């Protein structure tokens, strides 16, 4: 095999790997069901990649005894959280190890258990309560913004609420579709 052909194969394989990354997200963006989640943007950082906002969703921390489904999880487990629309935002209904059966007006979102707390600390010196919570990462906790705009989202003006419109595909994979401030689109992700 000559050198030119071998380099072409390297290019083809590496390009294919990158296209798979792009294709998976494009698939989710183009076929997914929109879901609006309440969020509190925290801790924007300026890395050499630019600014990004770290997103902390209401469903990032789940109180397990308030939800239906499976009880026992370990760090690193894959978790499916079934969501149901409640007024403006979607809320967690149950948690599962495997994708739950499809139910109308509900959708399962896939995540990974980051850590488990056996106790909850209410703060202000109050003693710890035996409430089991699990912290879940969904892979949509970062949102990159143009340089210098991270702080605007981090510190909304009084009365402003920030929420995220995700899309969830049939496999539970997610992608960020839009950032909403007071329900109005501030940043929108287009296909291309």
């Amino acid at each position, binding site marked *: 095999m000559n*050198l*030119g052909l*071998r*380099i072409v*194969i*390297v*290019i083809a*394989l*590496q*390009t294919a*790997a*990158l296209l798979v*990354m*792009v294709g998976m*997200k494009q698939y989710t963006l183009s076929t997914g069901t929109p879901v609006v989640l309440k969020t509190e943007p925290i801790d924007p950082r300026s890395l*050499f*990649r*630019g600014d*990004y906002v770290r997103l902390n969703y209401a469903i990032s921390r789940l109180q397990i005894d308030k939800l239906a489904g499976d009880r026992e999880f*370990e*760090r*690193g487990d894959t978790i499916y959280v079934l969501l149901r629309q409640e007024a403006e935002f979607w809320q967690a209904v149950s948690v599962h190890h495997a994708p739950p059966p499809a139910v109308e007006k509900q959708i399962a979102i896939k995540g*990974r258990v980051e850590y488990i707390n056996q106790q909850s600390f209410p703060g202000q010196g109050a003693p710890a309560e035996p409430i089991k919570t699990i912290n879940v*990462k969904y*892979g*949509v*906790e*970062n*949102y*990159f*913004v*143009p*340089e210098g*705009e991270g702080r605007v989202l981090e510190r909304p003006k009084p009365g402003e609420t920030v929420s995220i419109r995700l899309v969830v595909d049939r496999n539970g994979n997610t*992608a*960020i579709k839009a950032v909403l401030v007071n329900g109005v689109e501030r940043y929108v*992700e*287009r*296909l*291309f």
Partner: protein
Amino acid sequence: MGNKKFLARLAKELPDWAARGWVKAGAERVILDHVAAQGNGIPLLTYAFSILGVLLFGSGIITYFAANWGEIPKLIKLAILFGSLWLAYGAAWHALRNRHAPLLGQSLLLLGAILFGANIMLIAQVYHIDSHFPNGVLLWSVGALVGAYLVRSQPMLVAAIALGWLWTTLEFDHFSVRHYAHWPFLVLWAAFLPLIYWHRFRAALHLALVALLWWSLNAFGVDGLFWNTGSKTYLVQIYFLAYLAVYLLGMLFATFDRLADFARTVQRYGIFAALVSAYALTSPHIQSGQWGHMWGEKTLREVAGSADMVSTFVALALVAALALWHRNRTGGGARPAYLMWGEVLIGAIALLMLANLFLGGVSGGWVAIAFNLLFFAGMLWLLYAGMHTDDRFLVNLAFVFFGLTLLTRYFDTFWTLLNRSYFFMVGGLLLIAGGYVLERKRRQITAGIGARRKEGAP
């Protein structure tokens, strides 16, 4: 050896070879012309500048686009990412074809591998992907490795190994959630070996061995394997046996024609790591378990638990199997005496380690004395082996560890026995005199090795 030195040596030797009939009369000039035409090998400075240039250029591209990212439409971003990747590889092809700029070509291949990784990160940014981030590094490493296989590039392989090392470190530091070692790294690591073997990539071999030793610290040190099973002393014993196995593997390599090139490198990494572990085992504090506050143990260590015992037996069996294999490979002619003494030493170490499994911290002092005796015997053996095989590295290593251990024993034995001022005065004199004697002896031996090499002794 540089080409000029090689030429000079060849010019000196060739008349003698011709006189002995090893080289045809008149062929000397042809051989010398041929060697001279090969040039000076790899011009390291040019290579270093090319690589540095590629690294700087790659970093510049990433930071430029990152800073201006928000203003560029998504489709254009993707076109830039893919275009830069294709351009780098296209330029590499141009430089490599007809071998007109091989060093630049290799540097451009490395640039391609760097851009592949940059593209992974920037696509993750374009699509706000925030998943299990070591996977991105793994993908990067695999991409560089596939490239290295296809275009037989050492710089790409070195990049793949460095990224594999980064991958396992990230997995262990951030995601070692279930208390087991990061075993998948071994699969990736094994994939580096055929390329190193086929193309004799020495820089890649060095990095691969460093990465493996680094990984082994994590793998051995992981809590889950040895959780609540007594003392970490046994863990250090297993470290020692595993590294000794690497050293023996290097000795075995020397007996195979196709592997002999790698023998010394593998031996050196193995013996260095083994000596560090053995040095730890000579400590009375570790043997008695009196470093409890630091190691999270009780004041006196307990006897070995079942996991430690099984692991020690497996490691001992591995060492014994390699030693026997080596004996089998070298048993044909008169076997050098140092090999027999090496086997005796391994046997004595094995017996002591086995006995130590059943001895608690109460016997720690005696066990430490036994380990010290074996350690110093081991240094003498290493010195002998180094002289026998003309390996200056082994001789130097033996002297360094000999001196270090002697000094350590002086400190932990006489710190409490002598008045402080006497302690420092005697210690200072010992250092000056001992350092002088050891250095003089070391120079004599290594100079002897150098002289034998010049004479072309076997």
